[in-house]
């Protein structure tokens, strides 16, 4: 199923909202770079129940505590996600 990658803060643009509007049941979401600002406990947008991944290096770099119901991953796991999913859609602007 589709892997959606978002690298924009939910407060700074519509990338995450646009992505969630095109999200289908069973897809996966990966938050990287400024996208991790959506991974906090009290995030502005409701994320899907499961298959939401957050790059821990980017969260740590920004002092963001990842909400417990989300899955923190490293680069290696990111590569595995990309191999497991087709297609991969980048929501970068």
């Amino acid at each position, binding site marked *: 199923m589709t892997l959606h990658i978002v690298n924009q803060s939910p407060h700074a643009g519509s990338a995450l909202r646009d992505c969630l*509007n095109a999200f289908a049941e069973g897809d996966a979401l990966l938050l990287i770079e400024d996208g991790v600002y959506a991974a906090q406990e009290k995030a502005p947008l409701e994320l899907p129940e499961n298959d939401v991944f957050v790059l821990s290096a980017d969260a740590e770099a920004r002092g963001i505590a990842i909400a417990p119901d989300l899955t923190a991953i490293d680069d290696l796991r990111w590569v595995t996600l990309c191999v497991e999913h087709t297609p*991969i859609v980048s929501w970068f602007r």
Partner: protein
Amino acid sequence: MTNSILALCRHAPYGTTFAREGLEAVLACAAMDQIPEVLFINDGVYQLLAQNPQAIAEKSLYRNLQALPMFGVERIYICQRSATERGLALSQLQLTGADVQLLEDPGSLIRRFDQVLSF
């Protein structure tokens, strides 16, 4: 085994170069017999409005879009929500020579492709 490609056109024309770059990539793919399908979504739906950019010294993106059917892209998709949110009716978003389809659930279209290029 050829890969199926979807071009996701998400940005309005002129304000950034995404729209033009996206169209050029689609035409290049089509010229190489890798005919992509095209989905206009979010602000990308504005690309299909009638335009008159002479006043800002820009070439009309809409006119170049009309090359799509000639390059084999006979059907284009438009995200229904994106159009409605922007108060645009399907009648305003036509492309001569192409079958324009309004799409309620873009997610289910996107997941059918091997590759998705976002612009």
